[in-house]
């Protein structure tokens, strides 16, 4: 009982101080909206090595030659060979591949018939730049296509999945949710403890009966609420301004966001216990912010990055949350489709919280 009332006291204090800090309050609302507008415009990049699965239903000499040509282009990295086009769709839904190549059983005949497309290219349009490279693939020179006259219908027909009109905001906003939450959550909590240390409040607080856990939780809970409000704000503005849908379950999205927010807050708290000044806390946060933006698949398609960068990206919670938001919002995936990402976020949150609690002691030495 006493513990709960002390916890409530800390939370009330945090909310009160937050409300009075007009700049912070403005940032809570302002950052998401500004970013949303800024990133609402295109970011297109040249890419290679997109993970690809091939369903070669024809399996003829000609189709194998086509696949070899595709592999040689280096844009795709053929990782899987499956038997049906339906399987390609399932893999794309689960985020395992970015491109699916479906070669119908009558491939040879279609190649001869210049009014029909011979190959269907399934493209994951929920990733900002993958859609853009489809054009490149379509115009890929293929060895056996020697006819001088241009075909009425291209050899390859592109079917962009999830984002047929290829609008960039569709691609950017799910990732933007992750980036905005990461930035605000981590920054606010990173300075939370160290600010009180700098102002001298901490010396008073640790001399009262309030426990470390009460202090930590009391500081974090108000920010979780803020994170969820920010999410609502971005979804609302994204829907109104850019027509970005939430195709999957909104509950799934909020559950995933809750876990992601917890992971970031825990990391922020850990930073806060590790540094001595607010300035250091901010530097640490920015140190993590850039990789979270650049290596998480938000700007560059994850598959297109060098292997080392991919390893680094896998460590960042943002990477995993972006996969979740894109999956849920655009590909209508459920949490069950992406269990690995959820597990990583959960483990990350637990490890970081433990580390923060261990580091924070009610002593000064």
């Amino acid at each position, binding site marked *: 009982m*006493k513990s709960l*009332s*002390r916890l*409530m*006291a*800390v939370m*009330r*204090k945090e909310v*009160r*101080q937050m409300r*009075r*800090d007009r700049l912070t309050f403005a940032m809570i609302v302002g950052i998401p909206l500004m970013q949303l507008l800024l990133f609402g415009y295109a970011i297109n990049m040249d890419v290679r090595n997109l993970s690809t699965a091939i369903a070669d239903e024809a399996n003829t000499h000609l189709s194998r030659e086509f696949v070899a040509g595709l592999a040689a282009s280096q844009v795709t990295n053929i990782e899987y060979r499956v038997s049906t086009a339906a399987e390609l769709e399932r893999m794309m839904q689960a985020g395992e591949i970015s491109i699916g190549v479906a070669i119908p059983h009558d491939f040879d005949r279609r190649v001869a018939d210049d009014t029909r497309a011979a190959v269907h290219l399934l493209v994951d349009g929920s990733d900002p730049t993958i859609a853009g490279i489809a054009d490149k693939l379509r115009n890929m020179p293929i060895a056996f296509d020697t006819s001088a006259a241009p075909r009425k219908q291209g050899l390859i027909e592109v079917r962009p999945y999830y984002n047929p009109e290829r609008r960039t905001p569709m691609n950017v906003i799910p990732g933007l949710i992750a980036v905005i939450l990461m930035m605000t959550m981590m920054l606010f909590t990173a300075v939370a403890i160290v600010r009180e240390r700098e*102002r*001298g*409040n*901490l*010396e*008073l*607080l*640790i*001399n*009262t*009966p*309030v426990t470390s856990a009460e202090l930590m939780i009391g500081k974090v809970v108000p920010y979780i609420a803020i994170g969820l409000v920010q999410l609502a704000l971005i979804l609302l503005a994204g829907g109104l301004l850019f027509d970005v849908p939430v195709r999957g379950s909104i509950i799934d999205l909020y559950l995933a966001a809750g876990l992601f927010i917890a992971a970031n807050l825990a990391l922020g708290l850990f930073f806060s216990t590790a540094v001595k000044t607010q300035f250091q806390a901010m530097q640490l946060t920015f140190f993590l912010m850039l990789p979270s933006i650049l290596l998480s698949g938000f700007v560059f398609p994850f598959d297109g990055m060098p292997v080392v960068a991919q390893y680094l990206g896998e460590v960042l919670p943002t990477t995993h949350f972006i996969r979740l938001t894109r999956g849920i919002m655009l590909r209508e995936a459920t949490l069950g489709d992406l269990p690995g990402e959820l597990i990583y976020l959960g483990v990350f949150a637990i490890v970081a919280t433990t580390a923060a609690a261990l580091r924070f002691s*009610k*002593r*000064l*030495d």
Partner: protein
Amino acid sequence: MTRELAIRARGLSKHFGSLRAVDKLDLDVPKASIYGFLGPNGSGKSTTIRMLCGLLTPTDGRADVLGFEVPEHSKELKPKIGYMTQRFSLFGDMTVAENLEFIAEIYSFPAAHRASRVDELLEKYDLTEQRKQFAGTMSGGQRQRLALACAVLHHPELLLLDEPTSAVDPQSRRDFWANLFRLAEGGTTILVSTHYMDEAERCHRLAILDHGVKVADGSPRQLQSSTGMHVVEVLADNPYHAQTALINIAMVASVTQLGVRLRVLIPDSVDDPLALVNQNLQKHKVPAQSRIVAASLEDVFVAVTMNPERRAA
């Protein structure tokens, strides 16, 4: 002394690397008294106070505070002590009343009496008008009253005050001490650190710290009567000349100028200190009058903190 002790420390030490911030400190603080720590900056006052409330782990030694060993049992101790930090440590972006209410909640002060306790403290510490003012915008004296009100809100048995008056004017200091005496009369034990002599003089007992070592302790009167020094006051038209005449005598432990007067400390071992001073003044042809006076607390401080060779002269 048969009075119960609020604090009993033996051999309390704190080292930061090679720095001995506090070195083998023994301390007996009787209950319901005001105990002063007098010492220059860096003498280990704050470090000692922090060890006593469990904020710092002693490198060596033990301390018993209100019957609890620190830092092992500092958790049980927290609700019984009030602590006023050297720096203002309340929330500047909250009002006076909000700060008090927060402290009341943190100490689980019974909800039914919270509002009346806050009103009572505002009244007692003359903060009723500032009730809705942000703590960050108040004057030094007001902040200090608020800090004291917060420290005593939960009726602590022991108050630890770390240089509470370093940022306030003399009138505020007097009022502050009036409040401390009232609290001590009510049974609260108060440990207060200071570097002001006039404040040290008000304490029931005090310890003088120098470079982490307790160099003297006792009541102010005891300390003044046991300096081991004669104090000769010299009144001269040209105190500078008088000082030059006296400073290099082997038997003189220290010469301090106070306006046109000099206070000359001479060890007890010298039989006729007045003659020693007068002879030397005449030798240098400095016109002056001199007389033996009682030691002030400042003389005590100078005497106990000087290096041992000069002290023995």
